[in-house]
């Protein structure tokens, strides 16, 4: 197992279209990295460049400090799980898994031993003699996984491997793959557009947009400490609510004001915003960082009529209308809130995030 380092990695299609631009990334030994982003953001392009299936326009790829930028895929000591599994239909499951080992000219006992090991790990030992067409989607996915595991590569690449499975199986495979990673300790790069998948599996998440990395960090980092409005809006269901606020200074006090309410930023928030008086900022509030009260309380900032509620069992989502904008709040399941009811709403002030409306970047303490 080893490290992977990307330096200014770029890919240009045609003359002007950049599939990926200046990707700088360092993947540590045994780390599980997830590339996350909407479709067309360049995550698959990046992965294919790491695999050697896509030519690199600029930049360098290091695997364990060795420059592999121009090596063919088979010389890079990597393995890959494809979105479509890419299990060879004319070979049995055993032959599929043994394929890379045979090319390495291992003797047949060794091959058998290693195939058995990985098929135990991926729970396909009963299907070794079958052809892929006789397997279900989930089983084929396991075969692809076993084939990737059996070579014991330095870097393990997975290109949306779970996206072709049905929802229930996907959740199950997610747990299993995490367990397998824990056992094999393989350095892994995992591409997905499913944030739930990314958050539950990753050691670190790399969020990409338009061919560049926007933010990278642990699940908590990208969730609670978003770098910009794109990340805040992309991560989390329901996504972050964005409220446009004006900072006004009155009697030496800072006030965040919008058409419905105003409140005074205190403590940390004051430190962040003190240089922005008389300017417009965007306030990002996570749905669960808002509180819903049935009675007016000290913490509540404003009152509003409930538009709709979405009961979810473990919690309920309360939607209100604010400045022609739907704001969603995640509230505890009880007490039940009914549409049309007037509720009082407060914020967890230390969870608020402020963004510059022009650059969409986070406003941090000076």
């Amino acid at each position: 197992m080893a490290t992977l380092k990307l330096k200014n990695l770029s890919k240009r299609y045609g003359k002007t279209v950049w599939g990926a631009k200046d990707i700088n990334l360092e993947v540590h030994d045994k780390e599980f990295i997830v590339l996350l982003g909407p479709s067309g953001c360049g995550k698959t392009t990046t992965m294919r460049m790491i695999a050697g299936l896509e030519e690199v326009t600029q930049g360098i790829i290091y695997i364990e400090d060795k420059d592999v930028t121009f090596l063919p895929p088979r010389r890079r000591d990597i393995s890959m799980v494809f979105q479509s599994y890419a299990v060879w239909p004319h070979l049995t499951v055993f032959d599929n898994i043994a394929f890379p080992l045979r090319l390495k000219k291992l003797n047949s006992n060794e091959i058998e031993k290693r195939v058995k090991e990985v098929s135990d790990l991926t729970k396909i030992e009963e299907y070794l003699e079958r052809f892929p067409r006789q397997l279900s989607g989930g089983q084929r996915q396991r075969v692809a996984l076993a084939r990737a595991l059996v070579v014991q590569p330095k870097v393990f690449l997975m290109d949306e491997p779970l996206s072709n499975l049905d929802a229930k199986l996907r959740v199950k495979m997610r747990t299993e793959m995490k367990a397998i990673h824990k056992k094999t300790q393989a350095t892994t790069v995992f591409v997905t557009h499913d944030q739930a998948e990314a958050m539950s599996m990753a050691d670190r998440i790399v969020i990409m947009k338009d061919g560049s990395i926007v933010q990278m960090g642990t699940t908590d980092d990208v969730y609670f400490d978003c770098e910009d409005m794109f990340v805040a809006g992309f991560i989390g269901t329901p996504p972050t609510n964005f409220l446009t606020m004006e900072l006004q200074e009155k009697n030496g006090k800072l006030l965040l004001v919008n058409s419905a309410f105003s409140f005074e930023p205190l403590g940390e928030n004051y430190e962040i915003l003190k240089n922005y008086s008389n300017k417009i900022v965007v306030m990002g509030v996570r749905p669960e960082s808002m509180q819903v009260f049935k009675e007016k309380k000290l913490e509540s900032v404003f009152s509003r009529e409930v538009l709709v509620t979405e009961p979810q069992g473990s919690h309920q989502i309360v939607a209100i209308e604010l400045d022609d904008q739907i704001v969603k709040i995640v509230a505890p399941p009880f007490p039940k809130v009914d549409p049309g009811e007037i509720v009082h709403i407060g914020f967890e002030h230390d969870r608020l995030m402020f963004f510059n409306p022009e650059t969409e970047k986070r406003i941090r303490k000076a």
Partner: protein
Amino acid sequence: MSHKDLKAKQTKKLIGRTIFYLFIVFIIMVILLPIYFLLSISFMSDQEAYDWPVPLGLSFRSEFKIEPVLGTSEYLISVYSRSQEEYISLIQGSKIDQMSEFLRNKTNCNVSEEKLNEAIVEVNALYETNSEKIDSLTEDISSLEKKILSLNQNIIKAKRNLSIVEGRESMEAVEEQLRADLKEYESEKQSVSLEIKEKKSVLTPLNSTSFQVFKNLFANYVTFFKVTRDSIPALMRSIQVALFTVFIALTIGGMSGYAFARYAFKGKNVLKLSTLFVRMFPGIAIAMPMVIILAEMGFYDKPIGLSLVYSVGQIALTIWITASIFMGIPVELEEAAQVFGRTRVGAFIHITLPLALPGLAASAMYAFIGSWAETAQAIVLTQFNPTFPVVVYQTMVGAKGMVNLIAAGGVTMALPAVLFTILIRKYILQMWGGVKV
């Protein structure tokens, strides 16, 4: 009401099914009957092929009858005709070796001289023991035959008179009389000829012996190769042409098919369509220019020249077949092979090629059949080294016009194509459950 509905439905279903089966039968008749006809004619002897109506069933032996001709030292040999259901005379003669050869050519039966001699000895013995009976019977028969002759004359006379008298007034009585006469003559003739038949059937076992000889089924094929000008070299040339064409079409067509399937480039669709453009010219139309071009290349009248011409059309077809096959094979399969240790070419050879085999086999079959049976261009593009279809064609238009020989040539021409298809059928049918992943 519902009962009525049900009945109507059933009737409808019955009609539908009837039409369906009629259609199936029609298809079978249209496709299988001509093939069967061709096959059975190719196994027929000369005598059988011209024995109208030609019996369609295959026969494996012929029945011969030999009898001495009275007053000479010659013998008459007859063969049983299946369509007329009686013996018909074939040859009369005294030279055993000539007769044997004649029979072999005419009936495809190897009637050896010993066999003929044996039969002659037998029939002579028979003749001697029954000579009296035979004499009396033949006398009877000849007198009966004379009777028929005179009856025939009477009948003709009566008919002529009748045609004169008919329709005239005041001649009704004469006409009546003539009609009655005619009827009488005819009934008499019938009874006499019946008598002759009876006598003959008594006579036959007394003055003749019959014997059966197995037919040489493949005699026509042997004859075909003997009589046609260098047909075996022509066959070899044809196979050469077909295999060359398959090779050229598959390598060039297959590679371009792969390129069309895998790469995006400018003018791809136009180029792909334009490959079909060459197929729009009838082969015979471009044959003359081709003669000049091939002659300049030094390929005129050579198998390789012919296969070059055939390849042009076949490449287009192969491109279309293989492009769609390669498109059906996900590129990820190749990429996976590259990741797991194959080179690009290795991935193509070990992953894509086995998966594309059915399509390649199908286009190989098309190319083989298309170039194997092509006649029109081959006639123009060859001179001293014709291909097999040309030889068959020449036999057909030749002065001999022996139907059974042509049929034998036709079947021989069909055989390699059928064989080739049977050989590669495994690959055509070989589907890995559809190349789905």
